[in-house]
């Protein structure tokens, strides 16, 4: 970064700080310029990047996400709301690990991407992206991981679970998340302060952060393709899947389908629909042959995560109100007791204090003189 670039950025920061309180700064022209630069950097990286590691690096350092704003804008304009939230049912027994869903997600959300062929190849490649368990990143809203059940690989798609009672929504101190009636949990980048408490709260470790954006970083995560489902289309990852792993529809229907599949094939599936009750229920549901704990899913009970904080907040409010009464009484008591004297120490000995300071100064001057 040369000096001019440095100055430009420094000025942008100063400007951002000034206009920060006056509205949504993410829509400012400077911001768009920076985003343009980021795209340029992204394109350069695209050429240079080593295949798999390259895209992980790109995704980790991705900035200037536009999916958030697009989806939030869509949400604000939405007038029709479905009676029942939608859900996606993932049948893990069918997934072949082609990673086409990852490609489609990147493509639709304008995240860093590589040719589709490279995604499809990684299953048989050595070394491969599957060698490590990955998580969602700033520029990657969904990842497919490979686990082994005995000798057979099990591929698991990971993305935002779109909880019925989202931990992220509840954790946010500026109310930047919204649970829509479509089932999707959306994030509003124009309110976010960047505290990253939602990332602490999420039991599935989904929200990622644009750490490499110094001025307008955002949280990024799967939006359940809100901008598609409101137009009657299905999410990009569901649409591209050729192995029939995912089904999209009203949640109750998906649950019925899940149980039907389990009942019809009890030897193929374990009797557990992950997401039916976990953390109060989610809008992504999973069925599998292997127990979910072996596939990297957190073991959660039926308690929605927000309940933990709600109980505490209630206790604090009660205690603060209850404690206020005796404390106020104590204050009155102290005041009436001290009426004759002065209330605080400062008023009791002001003159002494003043002389103390003067003495100090004189002492110091004397010291100085003696030197």
């Amino acid at each position, binding site marked *: 970064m040369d000096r001019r670039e440095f100055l430009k950025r420094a000025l942008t920061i100063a400007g951002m700080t000034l206009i920060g309180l006056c509205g949504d700064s993410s829509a400012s022209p400077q911001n768009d310029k920076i985003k343009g630069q980021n795209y340029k950097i992204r394109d350069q990286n695209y050429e240079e990047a080593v295949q798999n590691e390259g895209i992980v690096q790109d995704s980790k350092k991705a900035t200037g996400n536009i999916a958030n704003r697009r989806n939030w804008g869509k949400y604000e304009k939405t007038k029709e709301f479905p009676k029942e939230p939608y859900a996606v049912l993932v049948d893990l027994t069918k997934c072949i690990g082609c990673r086409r869903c990852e490609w489609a997600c990147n493509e639709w959300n304008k995240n860093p991407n590589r040719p589709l062929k490279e995604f499809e190849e990684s299953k048989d490649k050595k070394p491969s992206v599957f060698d490590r368990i990955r998580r969602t990143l700033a520029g990657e809203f969904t990842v497919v991981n490979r686990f082994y059940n005995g000798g057979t690989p099990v591929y698991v798609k990971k993305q935002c679970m779109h909880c019925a009672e989202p931990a992220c929504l509840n954790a946010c101190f500026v109310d930047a998340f919204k649970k829509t009636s479509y089932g999707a949990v959306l994030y509003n980048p124009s*309110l976010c302060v960047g*505290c990253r408490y939602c990332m602490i709260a999420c039991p599935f470790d989904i929200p990622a952060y644009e750490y490499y954006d110094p001025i307008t970083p955002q949280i990024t995560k799967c939006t359940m393709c809100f901008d598609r489902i409101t137009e009657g289309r299905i999410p990009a990852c569901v649409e591209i899947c050729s192995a029939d792993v995912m089904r999209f529809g009203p949640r109750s229907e998906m649950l019925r389908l899940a149980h039907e599949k389990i009942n019809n094939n009890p030897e193929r599936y374990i009797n557990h629909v992950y997401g039916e009750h976990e953390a109060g229920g989610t809008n992504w549901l999973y069925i599998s042959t292997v127990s979910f704990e072996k596939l990297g899913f957190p073991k959660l009970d039926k308690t929605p995560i927000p309940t933990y904080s709600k109980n505490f907040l209630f206790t604090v409010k009660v205690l603060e109100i209850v404690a206020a009464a005796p404390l106020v009484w104590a204050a009155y008591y102290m005041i009436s007791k001290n009426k004759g004297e002065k209330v605080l120490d*400062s008023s009791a000995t002001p003159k002494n204090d003043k002389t103390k300071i003067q003495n100090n100064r004189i002492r110091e001057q004397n010291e100085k003189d003696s030197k």
Partner: protein
Amino acid sequence: MERNSWFKEKILLGMTFKDYISRHATLPFLIAFLILAFSFYSMIYRLIYGLGPATNLSDTYPWGLWISFDILAGIALAAPGLTLGTAVYLFGAKDYKKFARPAILSSLLGYIFAVFALMFDLGRYYRIGYVIFWSWGLNSILFLIAWHFFLYIIICLIEWAPAFFEWLGKDKLRDFFSKLGIWATVFGVIIAGGHQSALGGLFLVAPTKIHPLWYSDMLPLFFLISALFAGISMVIIESTISHRVFREHLKDFEPKEFDRKTIGLAKALIIILFVYLILKLFDLAHNDNWHYLKSNYGYWYLLEIVGFVLAPAMILINAVKTNNAKLVRITAFVIAFGVIINRFNVSLIAYNWYIPLAEKYYPTWMEVSLSFGVITLIILFYRFIVRRMAIL
């Protein structure tokens, strides 16, 4: 000319500018200056290049050293105002009046600089006002903390105002704030108690991510109680240091009286430490976590509890019996250090405890230097104010 002499009188303590600078060209100030230079570099680097290049924060570890040390540990150690302010102004512990003003000043500086450090951790620091004025996430524990911080800084300012206006020679304002002082203290108790526990409450939402030995439904209570003993041990530490450094400022200093009061604080410490220990034991038994003790995390947990809570409590009992104020002072350092370790344990070490050691978070030098810079600033401001206003 008039203004100039005011400046000379109040800011430079009656010295000329040249003298003032030359008097401060000492080794401690040189070190402070060096630390500040590094930390200012880190601050500017963070602002220009972002959190990614400046820190080791990641999607797995969204909170790092700045939250663990500057906020969680820092705020616990800034509890002197809560503990002593209450004891003196509300419960009439007049003996400890001399300790109260420094305690309030250290709380004030502690909170202001905790928020200052937080500004570098927030991705969009320029929106910090949103949480107060613009958009309220009423169900968030962090929202409660943000508001309580905001209110508590105001409360500390009111409590500190008499000393400030005394310094400026505005007697009417001083008297006005003196009268407000007791009300500020009352609300200060409520507010400080609320957010000290809420800092522990922050981690209630991560039941699956924090090691069972540290995760507990009582996390808020543990944070509150440990903040109380952290606060009292900080009072002892502070008075020890300031009585050594500012000895010449204290006209009527009686070592014996000072020792007696230190021992008195030790008695309070012992009680609180044991309450904490009993609750910790109860928590361990209630959740039946005994089997975790036989692991590396278990040994570390035992070190925290035995080494930094039980052992200091025992030593303090001994010190009170033998009337050994010096031992109390040394133990206070151990207790405060233990609280820092506890906050690191909950927020970093026990957080994501199941991931391999190689993927764990450790801070970059910039994160460390920024934190050290903030401590240096607190000390410098403390010194600046103590030398000018009637604090000690």
